[in-house]
């Protein structure tokens, strides 16, 4: 009864969730970063299995570089990146566990009880999808996409501005 697609989705979803959990259970920081990377890749694969090809490929590509950068930051900032000292890096576990499960159950409740309406027809093939997405992006949603672009720009500038070591002007001190 469940289609191949459903299986694929379930499989990749399960992989994503397992990697997600692995992120917070490992004590080694690099391992948790790469776990997150593979979880994102699994999500990319889910997109592909849902025939959103462009998005899947995009997700996979982006997350690779992003998460590796995350990894290097982890190494830079964490006290014990190797995780050899089995340091306890968490606090208020109980509360967060409860809230996490509540969030999960709420979302599931919404997913199950809401009537999503009729299922859609089959999606167009990948090439046409990409074409239509391209037209959509530079057509109707041009403004939205431009703002998104500019936001990323400002974010980058802001991040670098914040991160730059304050210039030690000679006049200071």
């Amino acid at each position, binding site marked *: 009864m469940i289609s191949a697609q459903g299986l694929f989705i379930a499989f990749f979803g399960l992989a994503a969730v397992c990697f997600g959990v692995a992120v917070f259970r490992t004590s*080694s920081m690099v391992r948790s970063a790469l776990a997150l990377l593979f979880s994102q890749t699994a999500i990319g694969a889910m997109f592909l299995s849902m025939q959103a090809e462009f998005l899947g490929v995009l997700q996979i590509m982006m997350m*690779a570089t992003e998460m590796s950068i995350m990894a290097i930051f982890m*190494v830079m900032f964490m006290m014990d990146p190797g995780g050899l000292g089995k340091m306890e890096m968490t606090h208020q576990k109980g509360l967060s566990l409860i809230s996490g499960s509540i969030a999960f159950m709420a979302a599931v409740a919404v997913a199950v009880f809401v009537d999503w309406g009729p299922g859609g027809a089959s999606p167009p093939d990948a090439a046409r999808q990409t074409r239509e997405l391209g037209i959509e992006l530079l057509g109707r949603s041009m403004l939205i996409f431009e703002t998104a672009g500019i936001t990323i720009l400002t974010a980058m500038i802001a991040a670098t501005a914040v991160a730059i070591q304050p210039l030690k002007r000679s006049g200071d001190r």
Partner: protein
Amino acid sequence: MTTLLVLLSLTVGVYLVAVLEAWTTNGHFRIAAPLCSALALLGRESIVPRKADRIFFEAAPILLLTSALLGAAVIPLAPALIVTDLATGALFLNAALAYVLVALLMAGWGPDGAYAMVGGWRFLGQVIAYAMLIVMPIMAVAMRAESLLTTEIVASQAGLWNILYQPLGFVLFFAAAMALAFVPPFDLPTAQGELAGGVEGEYTGVRLAVFRLGRMVLILTLAAATVTFYLGGWQGPLLPPWAWSAIKTLAVAATMLLAGRMMPRIREAHLLAWGWKLGIPLALLNIFLVGVLVLVLP
């Protein structure tokens, strides 16, 4: 059936690239050189460092190989000779090749060695430098072909090869490709002089063999990609399509291996600076030019 053919042609290609690489590195042409070294490696004892992170240590070479192979999947060696003709083929190639970075990171972090780790993080710095430089030329090429299908791209070069249509794009792409395949002058992760083999340093035996094989496949894929995007793929006057693509690929691979031998290894900071301050503006300029050309020429 086509996949089998592709695989066959790939193995032959890889072997030849290995021969070329052996020729370029130690100066004399021995057709059996890769075979001998492979057999030697397989015979050696495979050592695992004490505190190594087993998962990373084991997975790194394999991931390198698979990402290279996945990259090769979308490259059309001949009009019908392609594993899968994805609608977003060009982008997929890039996505696949992104995992080379992950593989090298894992190879660097896995064996818990100082040089390996430094090598791994160096390659991350290197990737950050040219990551954009690969995507933007491909975009320019896709603009000309008005589609991400690799076969479409090759077909669009029927009249004029992209190398002539957008030479700037070709130069940027070729440099980025060499950096991605970490051939000298971009061989920062396995810097022989400084890091004593760097990422490869800790590997011995079978893992090293797989690692090297992965690297050879990576070089082959990149060469094939260059051929597909800029040198008109399988198009050529007399010879059959697969012969043209083979010749072109081997030529590009050879140039890749030879081009950087004379140059000193580029330090990461310079690489980053040139990549972002010089490379990206040029790439944007290239896109602009291609856009104009596409609109102007019918």
